[in-house]
Protein backbone atom coordinates (compact mmCIF):
# COMPACT_ATOMS: atom_id res chain seq x y z
CA UNK A 1 0.00 0.00 0.00
CA UNK A 2 1.19 3.52 -0.79
CA UNK A 3 1.98 5.89 2.05
CA UNK A 4 -0.38 8.79 2.76
CA UNK A 5 1.38 12.15 2.65
CA UNK A 6 0.55 15.22 4.73
CA UNK A 7 -1.17 17.00 1.83
CA UNK A 8 -3.93 14.39 1.67
CA UNK A 9 -4.52 14.70 5.38
CA UNK A 10 -5.37 18.37 5.05
CA UNK A 11 -8.64 19.05 6.80
CA UNK A 12 -8.48 15.73 8.63
CA UNK A 13 -5.45 16.37 10.79
CA UNK A 14 -7.45 18.08 13.51
CA UNK A 15 -9.88 15.18 13.82
CA UNK A 16 -6.95 12.77 13.91
CA UNK A 17 -5.32 14.78 16.70
CA UNK A 18 -8.54 14.87 18.72
CA UNK A 19 -8.87 11.11 18.28
CA UNK A 20 -5.34 10.50 19.61
CA UNK A 21 -6.03 12.73 22.61
CA UNK A 22 -8.97 10.53 23.50
CA UNK A 23 -6.35 8.09 24.83
CA UNK A 24 -5.23 10.71 27.33
CA UNK A 25 -3.25 13.95 27.51
CA UNK A 26 -0.03 14.14 25.51
CA UNK A 27 2.66 16.49 24.19
CA UNK A 28 3.36 16.97 20.48
CA UNK A 29 5.79 14.11 20.04
CA UNK A 30 3.53 11.67 21.85
CA UNK A 31 0.62 12.68 19.60
CA UNK A 32 2.79 11.97 16.55
CA UNK A 33 3.79 8.61 18.00
CA UNK A 34 0.14 7.68 18.49
CA UNK A 35 -0.68 8.77 14.94
CA UNK A 36 2.19 6.70 13.63
CA UNK A 37 1.12 3.66 15.61
CA UNK A 38 -2.51 4.08 14.54
CA UNK A 39 -1.59 4.57 10.88
CA UNK A 40 0.68 1.52 10.82
CA UNK A 41 3.50 3.64 9.39
CA UNK A 42 1.45 4.67 6.37
CA UNK A 43 1.00 8.29 7.45
CA UNK A 44 3.76 10.67 6.38
CA UNK A 45 3.49 13.94 8.22
CA UNK A 46 5.91 16.85 8.43
CA UNK A 47 6.17 16.95 12.20
CA UNK A 48 6.07 20.73 12.46
CA UNK A 49 2.61 20.74 10.83
CA UNK A 50 1.16 19.25 13.98
CA UNK A 51 1.49 22.55 15.84
CA UNK A 52 -0.65 24.77 13.59
CA UNK A 53 -3.38 22.12 13.95
CA UNK A 54 -2.98 22.11 17.74
CA UNK A 55 -3.09 25.93 17.87
CA UNK A 56 -6.29 25.95 15.83
CA UNK A 57 -7.85 23.39 18.15
CA UNK A 58 -6.72 25.44 21.14
CA UNK A 59 -8.26 28.63 19.74
CA UNK A 60 -11.47 26.73 19.09
CA UNK A 61 -11.47 25.56 22.73
CA UNK A 62 -11.35 21.90 21.75
CA UNK A 63 -8.05 21.24 23.47
CA UNK A 64 -6.34 22.80 26.47
CA UNK A 65 -2.59 23.04 26.98
CA UNK A 66 -0.29 23.41 29.98
CA UNK A 67 3.49 23.81 29.99
CA UNK A 68 5.29 20.68 31.08
CA UNK A 69 7.49 20.87 34.16
CA UNK A 70 11.29 21.02 33.81
CA UNK A 71 11.95 18.60 30.95
CA UNK A 72 13.23 15.27 32.15
CA UNK A 73 16.94 15.46 32.93
CA UNK A 74 17.93 17.95 30.27
CA UNK A 75 17.52 21.64 30.90
CA UNK A 76 16.23 22.50 27.45
CA UNK A 77 13.06 24.08 26.11
CA UNK A 78 9.72 22.93 27.51
CA UNK A 79 6.92 21.41 25.50
CA UNK A 80 3.21 21.74 26.20
CA UNK A 81 0.83 19.00 27.21
CA UNK A 82 -2.52 18.93 25.43
CA UNK A 83 -5.78 17.64 26.81
CA UNK A 84 -9.20 17.14 25.25
CA UNK A 85 -11.92 19.51 26.52
CA UNK A 86 -15.64 18.59 26.65
CA UNK A 87 -16.04 20.77 23.56
CA UNK A 88 -13.33 18.72 21.85
CA UNK A 89 -15.06 15.49 22.78
CA UNK A 90 -18.29 16.79 21.23
CA UNK A 91 -16.43 17.89 18.08
CA UNK A 92 -14.87 14.45 17.81
CA UNK A 93 -18.26 12.73 18.10
CA UNK A 94 -19.71 15.02 15.43
CA UNK A 95 -16.67 14.50 13.19
CA UNK A 96 -17.05 10.74 13.43
CA UNK A 97 -20.67 10.95 12.32
CA UNK A 98 -19.76 13.15 9.37
CA UNK A 99 -16.93 10.84 8.39
CA UNK A 100 -19.25 7.82 8.39
CA UNK A 101 -21.69 9.59 6.07
CA UNK A 102 -18.82 10.72 3.82
CA UNK A 103 -17.31 7.27 3.51
CA UNK A 104 -20.66 5.51 2.99
CA UNK A 105 -21.77 7.99 0.33
CA UNK A 106 -18.52 8.08 -1.65
CA UNK A 107 -17.92 4.37 -1.11
CA UNK A 108 -21.27 3.53 -2.69
CA UNK A 109 -20.45 5.65 -5.73
CA UNK A 110 -16.89 4.28 -5.98
CA UNK A 111 -18.31 0.79 -5.89
CA UNK A 112 -16.66 -0.14 -2.59
CA UNK A 113 -19.57 0.10 -0.13
CA UNK A 114 -18.35 0.49 3.46
Amino acid at each position, binding site marked *: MDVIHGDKLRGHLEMLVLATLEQGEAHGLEILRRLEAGGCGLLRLREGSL*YPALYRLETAGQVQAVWEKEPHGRRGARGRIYRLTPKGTRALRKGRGEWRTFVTTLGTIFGVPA
Partner: protein
Amino acid sequence: MNIPFHQFTDEARRVMDLANAESRRLNHEYIGTEHVLLGLIKKEAGVAADILKNLAIDPGAVPAEVEKLIKTGPEMTAVGERPLTPRAGAAIRYAVEESRRLLQKSVGPEHLLVGLAIEGAGVAGLVLRKLGLEPQALRPAAFKVRLMQITTVEKIVRPVRAATPRKRKMREELLAHLETICEEERARLKDPAAATAAAARRFGDPAALTRELDRSLPRLERYAYRVERRFGWRAPESAARYTLRVAMQLFVVIAMALGILVAAVVVSRGWNQADWIAIRPALALLLLLPLDEFLLGLLYFKIRDALWGVFGARRSAFHASLLGLLFACVVVVSGLGFFALATWDVDRATQQIYPVVVAAVAAATACISLARLRGRVEIADTLWACLDIDTSAPGIAGP
Protein backbone atom coordinates in the same frame (compact mmCIF):
# COMPACT_ATOMS: atom_id res chain seq x y z
CA MET B 1 34.08 35.57 42.04
CA ASN B 2 30.59 34.64 41.14
CA ILE B 3 30.51 31.53 38.95
CA PRO B 4 27.08 29.99 38.35
CA PHE B 5 28.14 26.35 38.65
CA HIS B 6 24.50 25.34 39.14
CA GLN B 7 23.99 26.13 35.45
CA PHE B 8 26.66 23.64 34.38
CA THR B 9 25.67 20.40 32.66
CA ASP B 10 26.92 17.14 34.15
CA GLU B 11 29.59 17.05 31.44
CA ALA B 12 30.76 20.57 32.25
CA ARG B 13 30.95 19.69 35.95
CA ARG B 14 33.04 16.68 35.04
CA VAL B 15 35.35 18.99 33.08
CA MET B 16 35.84 21.11 36.20
CA ASP B 17 36.56 17.99 38.28
CA LEU B 18 39.08 16.87 35.68
CA ALA B 19 40.62 20.37 35.70
CA ASN B 20 40.98 20.09 39.47
CA ALA B 21 42.67 16.70 39.05
CA GLU B 22 45.04 18.11 36.41
CA SER B 23 45.99 20.91 38.77
CA ARG B 24 46.71 18.37 41.51
CA ARG B 25 48.75 16.22 39.13
CA LEU B 26 50.90 19.23 38.20
CA ASN B 27 51.25 20.26 41.86
CA HIS B 28 49.52 23.59 41.26
CA GLU B 29 47.52 25.46 43.86
CA TYR B 30 44.99 26.96 41.48
CA ILE B 31 42.81 26.09 38.48
CA GLY B 32 43.97 28.04 35.48
CA THR B 33 42.77 28.08 31.87
CA GLU B 34 45.35 25.36 31.06
CA HIS B 35 43.80 22.92 33.55
CA VAL B 36 40.32 23.53 32.15
CA LEU B 37 41.63 22.89 28.64
CA LEU B 38 43.40 19.71 29.76
CA GLY B 39 40.14 18.59 31.37
CA LEU B 40 38.18 19.37 28.20
CA ILE B 41 40.27 17.19 25.90
CA LYS B 42 39.84 14.08 28.04
CA LYS B 43 37.69 11.46 26.40
CA GLU B 44 35.14 11.35 29.20
CA ALA B 45 34.64 15.13 28.98
CA GLY B 46 32.34 15.03 25.97
CA VAL B 47 32.28 16.99 22.75
CA ALA B 48 35.22 19.41 23.01
CA ALA B 49 37.82 16.98 21.63
CA ASP B 50 35.58 16.22 18.63
CA ILE B 51 35.10 19.92 17.94
CA LEU B 52 38.88 20.42 17.86
CA LYS B 53 39.32 17.40 15.58
CA ASN B 54 36.73 18.84 13.19
CA LEU B 55 38.86 21.98 13.02
CA ALA B 56 41.91 19.85 12.16
CA ILE B 57 43.47 20.35 15.59
CA ASP B 58 44.89 17.32 17.33
CA PRO B 59 43.72 17.33 20.97
CA GLY B 60 46.57 14.94 21.71
CA ALA B 61 49.05 17.74 21.06
CA VAL B 62 47.58 19.93 23.81
CA PRO B 63 49.36 18.48 26.92
CA ALA B 64 52.83 18.83 25.37
CA GLU B 65 52.13 22.45 24.37
CA VAL B 66 50.78 23.24 27.83
CA GLU B 67 53.85 21.78 29.49
CA LYS B 68 56.11 23.95 27.31
CA LEU B 69 54.51 27.01 28.90
CA ILE B 70 54.13 25.99 32.53
CA LYS B 71 56.23 24.32 35.17
CA THR B 72 55.05 21.68 37.58
CA GLY B 73 55.03 22.89 41.15
CA PRO B 74 56.96 21.49 44.09
CA GLU B 75 55.66 18.30 45.69
CA MET B 76 52.74 19.06 47.93
CA THR B 77 49.83 17.45 49.61
CA ALA B 78 47.07 20.07 49.21
CA VAL B 79 43.78 18.34 48.53
CA GLY B 80 40.28 19.44 47.66
CA GLU B 81 38.95 22.27 45.51
CA ARG B 82 41.46 24.74 44.16
CA PRO B 83 40.53 28.37 43.49
CA LEU B 84 40.13 29.65 39.92
CA THR B 85 42.64 32.10 38.54
CA PRO B 86 41.15 35.41 37.33
CA ARG B 87 41.71 34.36 33.71
CA ALA B 88 39.95 31.03 34.22
CA GLY B 89 37.10 32.90 35.92
CA ALA B 90 36.87 35.26 32.96
CA ALA B 91 36.87 32.33 30.50
CA ILE B 92 34.00 30.71 32.41
CA ARG B 93 32.04 33.96 32.42
CA TYR B 94 32.50 34.14 28.63
CA ALA B 95 31.24 30.55 28.44
CA VAL B 96 28.12 31.47 30.44
CA GLU B 97 27.57 34.46 28.15
CA GLU B 98 27.87 32.21 25.07
CA SER B 99 25.25 29.84 26.39
CA ARG B 100 22.89 32.73 27.09
CA ARG B 101 23.38 34.13 23.61
CA LEU B 102 22.37 30.74 22.24
CA LEU B 103 19.26 30.86 24.45
CA GLN B 104 20.44 27.86 26.45
CA LYS B 105 19.76 27.33 30.11
CA SER B 106 22.94 25.42 30.85
CA VAL B 107 26.66 25.58 30.17
CA GLY B 108 28.32 22.62 28.47
CA PRO B 109 31.90 21.71 27.48
CA GLU B 110 31.45 23.38 24.07
CA HIS B 111 30.77 26.71 25.78
CA LEU B 112 33.81 26.27 28.02
CA LEU B 113 36.01 25.65 24.98
CA VAL B 114 34.75 28.80 23.25
CA GLY B 115 35.12 30.72 26.53
CA LEU B 116 38.79 29.72 26.74
CA ALA B 117 39.38 30.82 23.15
CA ILE B 118 37.65 34.18 23.68
CA GLU B 119 39.65 34.84 26.85
CA GLY B 120 42.66 34.23 24.63
CA ALA B 121 45.48 35.55 26.82
CA GLY B 122 45.60 32.63 29.27
CA VAL B 123 47.75 29.56 28.70
CA ALA B 124 44.79 27.74 27.10
CA GLY B 125 44.22 30.59 24.63
CA LEU B 126 47.91 30.68 23.71
CA VAL B 127 48.06 26.92 23.23
CA LEU B 128 44.92 26.84 21.08
CA ARG B 129 46.28 29.60 18.86
CA LYS B 130 49.67 27.92 18.64
CA LEU B 131 47.94 24.74 17.43
CA GLY B 132 46.32 26.75 14.63
CA LEU B 133 42.84 27.51 15.99
CA GLU B 134 41.07 30.25 14.05
CA PRO B 135 38.88 32.01 16.63
CA GLN B 136 36.21 32.91 14.06
CA ALA B 137 35.96 29.28 12.90
CA LEU B 138 35.36 27.96 16.40
CA ARG B 139 31.85 29.27 17.12
CA PRO B 140 30.13 27.79 14.04
CA ALA B 141 31.91 24.47 14.64
CA ALA B 142 31.26 24.31 18.38
CA PHE B 143 27.61 25.35 18.21
CA LYS B 144 26.62 23.78 14.89
CA VAL B 145 23.64 21.78 16.12
CA ARG B 146 22.37 24.47 18.45
CA LEU B 147 22.63 27.18 15.79
CA MET B 148 20.73 24.99 13.36
CA GLN B 149 17.99 24.39 15.93
CA ILE B 150 17.44 28.02 16.86
CA THR B 151 17.77 29.41 13.33
CA THR B 152 15.27 26.83 12.08
CA VAL B 153 12.78 27.77 14.78
CA GLU B 154 13.28 31.49 14.22
CA LYS B 155 13.00 31.11 10.44
CA ILE B 156 9.60 29.54 11.00
CA VAL B 157 8.33 31.87 13.71
CA ARG B 158 9.70 35.31 12.80
CA PRO B 159 7.54 35.97 9.70
CA VAL B 160 4.35 34.81 11.43
CA ARG B 161 2.05 37.78 11.96
CA ALA B 162 1.56 37.34 15.69
CA ALA B 163 2.45 39.41 18.75
CA THR B 164 5.49 38.56 20.89
CA PRO B 165 3.78 36.57 23.70
CA ARG B 166 2.34 34.12 21.19
CA LYS B 167 5.61 33.88 19.29
CA ARG B 168 7.41 33.20 22.57
CA LYS B 169 5.12 30.22 23.10
CA MET B 170 5.65 28.93 19.56
CA ARG B 171 9.43 29.30 19.79
CA GLU B 172 9.74 27.34 23.00
CA GLU B 173 7.37 24.59 21.96
CA LEU B 174 8.85 24.13 18.47
CA LEU B 175 12.36 24.24 19.92
CA ALA B 176 11.47 21.57 22.49
CA HIS B 177 10.24 19.33 19.68
CA LEU B 178 13.27 19.98 17.48
CA GLU B 179 15.68 19.37 20.37
CA THR B 180 14.05 16.03 21.09
CA ILE B 181 14.03 14.80 17.50
CA CYS B 182 17.67 15.90 17.11
CA GLU B 183 18.50 13.69 20.09
CA GLU B 184 16.49 10.82 18.62
CA GLU B 185 18.26 11.08 15.28
CA ARG B 186 21.60 11.44 17.05
CA ALA B 187 21.02 8.16 18.87
CA ARG B 188 20.06 6.52 15.57
CA LEU B 189 22.69 7.97 13.22
CA LYS B 190 25.69 8.76 15.48
CA ASP B 191 27.03 11.37 13.01
CA PRO B 192 25.86 14.77 14.34
CA ALA B 193 25.69 16.48 10.92
CA ALA B 194 23.60 13.72 9.35
CA ALA B 195 21.37 13.59 12.45
CA THR B 196 20.78 17.33 12.30
CA ALA B 197 19.84 17.15 8.63
CA ALA B 198 17.48 14.23 9.27
CA ALA B 199 15.79 16.10 12.12
CA ALA B 200 15.30 19.17 9.91
CA ARG B 201 13.71 16.97 7.22
CA ARG B 202 11.34 15.39 9.74
CA PHE B 203 10.31 18.83 10.96
CA GLY B 204 9.38 20.18 7.52
CA ASP B 205 10.04 23.16 5.27
CA PRO B 206 10.23 26.36 7.36
CA ALA B 207 8.41 28.54 4.82
CA ALA B 208 5.48 26.12 4.60
CA LEU B 209 5.28 25.87 8.39
CA THR B 210 5.27 29.67 8.64
CA ARG B 211 2.25 29.82 6.33
CA GLU B 212 0.40 27.13 8.29
CA LEU B 213 1.12 28.82 11.61
CA ASP B 214 0.03 32.17 10.24
CA ARG B 215 -3.28 30.70 9.12
CA SER B 216 -3.86 29.01 12.46
CA LEU B 217 -4.09 32.30 14.37
CA PRO B 218 -7.31 33.88 15.62
CA ARG B 219 -8.26 37.23 14.07
CA LEU B 220 -7.55 39.14 17.28
CA GLU B 221 -3.91 38.14 17.07
CA ARG B 222 -3.62 40.11 13.83
CA TYR B 223 -4.65 43.32 15.61
CA ALA B 224 -2.25 42.68 18.47
CA TYR B 225 0.46 42.18 15.87
CA ARG B 226 -0.32 45.48 14.13
CA VAL B 227 -0.38 47.41 17.40
CA GLU B 228 2.97 45.92 18.34
CA ARG B 229 4.44 46.77 14.95
CA ARG B 230 3.29 50.35 15.40
CA PHE B 231 4.26 51.03 19.00
CA GLY B 232 6.48 48.15 20.14
CA TRP B 233 10.18 47.53 19.83
CA ARG B 234 11.33 46.62 16.33
CA ALA B 235 14.41 44.44 16.06
CA PRO B 236 17.21 45.43 15.92
CA GLU B 237 16.67 49.06 16.96
CA SER B 238 18.57 50.33 20.00
CA ALA B 239 16.96 51.14 23.35
CA ALA B 240 17.63 54.85 22.78
CA ARG B 241 16.03 54.87 19.36
CA TYR B 242 13.05 52.89 20.57
CA THR B 243 12.32 55.09 23.59
CA LEU B 244 12.79 58.22 21.46
CA ARG B 245 10.32 56.92 18.90
CA VAL B 246 7.72 56.14 21.57
CA ALA B 247 8.31 59.57 23.14
CA MET B 248 7.58 61.26 19.82
CA GLN B 249 4.48 59.14 19.29
CA LEU B 250 3.33 60.09 22.79
CA PHE B 251 3.90 63.78 22.05
CA VAL B 252 1.85 63.60 18.87
CA VAL B 253 -1.01 61.75 20.59
CA ILE B 254 -1.19 64.22 23.51
CA ALA B 255 -0.86 67.22 21.18
CA MET B 256 -3.72 65.93 19.05
CA ALA B 257 -5.97 65.28 22.03
CA LEU B 258 -5.20 68.74 23.41
CA GLY B 259 -5.79 70.34 20.01
CA ILE B 260 -9.20 68.72 19.71
CA LEU B 261 -10.13 69.84 23.23
CA VAL B 262 -9.10 73.46 22.57
CA ALA B 263 -10.88 73.50 19.21
CA ALA B 264 -14.05 72.15 20.84
CA VAL B 265 -13.97 74.87 23.51
CA VAL B 266 -13.31 77.63 20.95
CA VAL B 267 -16.13 76.49 18.68
CA SER B 268 -18.69 75.97 21.46
CA ARG B 269 -18.28 79.14 23.52
CA GLY B 270 -15.15 81.00 22.49
CA TRP B 271 -11.84 81.26 24.30
CA ASN B 272 -11.51 83.37 27.43
CA GLN B 273 -8.65 84.32 29.69
CA ALA B 274 -9.47 81.78 32.41
CA ASP B 275 -9.03 78.92 29.95
CA TRP B 276 -5.31 79.54 29.84
CA ILE B 277 -5.06 78.66 33.51
CA ALA B 278 -7.22 75.58 33.03
CA ILE B 279 -5.09 74.33 30.18
CA ARG B 280 -1.72 74.83 31.87
CA PRO B 281 -1.50 71.34 33.50
CA ALA B 282 -2.24 69.75 30.12
CA LEU B 283 0.51 71.78 28.46
CA ALA B 284 2.90 70.74 31.23
CA LEU B 285 2.02 67.09 30.55
CA LEU B 286 2.57 67.62 26.82
CA LEU B 287 6.10 68.77 27.57
CA LEU B 288 7.03 66.44 30.40
CA LEU B 289 5.44 63.08 29.58
CA PRO B 290 7.36 62.42 26.35
CA LEU B 291 10.59 63.64 27.95
CA ASP B 292 10.04 61.36 30.96
CA GLU B 293 9.11 58.46 28.74
CA PHE B 294 12.41 58.86 26.94
CA LEU B 295 14.61 59.28 30.02
CA LEU B 296 12.87 56.77 32.28
CA GLY B 297 12.46 54.23 29.49
CA LEU B 298 16.13 54.42 28.69
CA LEU B 299 17.05 54.11 32.38
CA TYR B 300 14.80 51.06 32.68
CA PHE B 301 16.73 49.30 29.92
CA LYS B 302 20.08 50.32 31.46
CA ILE B 303 18.96 48.98 34.86
CA ARG B 304 17.72 45.73 33.34
CA ASP B 305 20.96 45.18 31.42
CA ALA B 306 23.07 45.92 34.51
CA LEU B 307 21.00 43.54 36.64
CA TRP B 308 21.34 40.70 34.16
CA GLY B 309 24.75 41.60 32.73
CA VAL B 310 23.66 41.52 29.10
CA PHE B 311 24.06 43.51 25.87
CA GLY B 312 27.51 44.82 26.76
CA ALA B 313 26.63 45.84 30.34
CA ARG B 314 28.63 44.43 33.23
CA ARG B 315 26.53 42.52 35.73
CA SER B 316 26.53 44.79 38.76
CA ALA B 317 23.86 45.29 41.39
CA PHE B 318 25.69 48.44 42.53
CA HIS B 319 25.57 49.98 39.06
CA ALA B 320 21.89 49.06 38.83
CA SER B 321 21.14 50.77 42.16
CA LEU B 322 22.97 53.93 41.05
CA LEU B 323 20.88 53.98 37.91
CA GLY B 324 17.82 53.43 40.09
CA LEU B 325 18.79 56.51 42.11
CA LEU B 326 19.12 58.49 38.89
CA PHE B 327 15.67 57.21 37.90
CA ALA B 328 14.25 58.56 41.18
CA CYS B 329 15.98 61.92 40.61
CA VAL B 330 14.42 62.24 37.17
CA VAL B 331 11.00 61.56 38.68
CA VAL B 332 11.58 64.19 41.41
CA VAL B 333 12.71 66.87 38.95
CA SER B 334 9.91 66.24 36.50
CA GLY B 335 7.33 65.99 39.32
CA LEU B 336 8.34 69.36 40.72
CA GLY B 337 8.61 70.69 37.19
CA PHE B 338 5.04 69.63 36.54
CA PHE B 339 3.70 71.45 39.59
CA ALA B 340 5.78 74.54 38.75
CA LEU B 341 4.50 74.65 35.18
CA ALA B 342 0.92 73.79 36.09
CA THR B 343 0.59 76.41 38.86
CA TRP B 344 3.17 78.84 37.46
CA ASP B 345 4.38 79.26 41.03
CA VAL B 346 7.72 77.81 42.09
CA ASP B 347 7.05 78.24 45.82
CA ARG B 348 3.86 76.24 45.67
CA ALA B 349 5.62 73.59 43.62
CA THR B 350 8.42 73.15 46.18
CA GLN B 351 5.82 72.52 48.86
CA GLN B 352 5.01 69.30 47.02
CA ILE B 353 8.51 67.94 47.56
CA TYR B 354 7.53 65.20 50.05
CA PRO B 355 4.81 63.48 48.03
CA VAL B 356 7.01 63.80 44.94
CA VAL B 357 9.97 62.13 46.65
CA VAL B 358 7.75 59.31 47.92
CA ALA B 359 6.40 58.81 44.41
CA ALA B 360 9.93 58.84 42.99
CA VAL B 361 11.18 56.18 45.40
CA ALA B 362 8.13 54.04 44.67
CA ALA B 363 8.63 54.46 40.92
CA ALA B 364 12.33 53.55 41.08
CA THR B 365 11.57 50.49 43.22
CA ALA B 366 8.87 49.43 40.78
CA CYS B 367 11.28 49.91 37.89
CA ILE B 368 13.97 47.71 39.47
CA SER B 369 11.44 45.02 40.43
CA LEU B 370 10.06 45.02 36.91
CA ALA B 371 13.56 44.68 35.47
CA ARG B 372 14.22 41.71 37.77
CA LEU B 373 10.87 40.10 37.07
CA ARG B 374 10.57 40.65 33.33
CA GLY B 375 14.27 40.83 32.48
CA ARG B 376 14.90 37.20 31.63
CA VAL B 377 11.91 36.92 29.29
CA GLU B 378 12.56 40.29 27.62
CA ILE B 379 16.21 39.44 27.02
CA ALA B 380 15.30 36.07 25.52
CA ASP B 381 12.73 37.75 23.22
CA THR B 382 15.34 40.27 22.13
CA LEU B 383 17.97 37.60 21.44
CA TRP B 384 15.48 35.61 19.38
CA ALA B 385 14.38 38.65 17.41
CA CYS B 386 17.99 39.65 16.71
CA LEU B 387 19.12 36.16 15.71
CA ASP B 388 20.74 36.12 12.29
CA ILE B 389 18.57 33.72 10.29
CA ASP B 390 19.86 34.56 6.82
CA THR B 391 23.18 32.76 7.10
CA SER B 392 21.65 29.40 6.41
CA ALA B 393 22.93 26.98 9.00
CA PRO B 394 24.17 23.61 7.78
CA GLY B 395 21.67 20.82 7.61
CA ILE B 396 18.61 22.83 6.70
CA ALA B 397 16.91 21.32 3.72
CA GLY B 398 13.36 21.24 2.41
CA PRO B 399 11.32 18.04 2.52
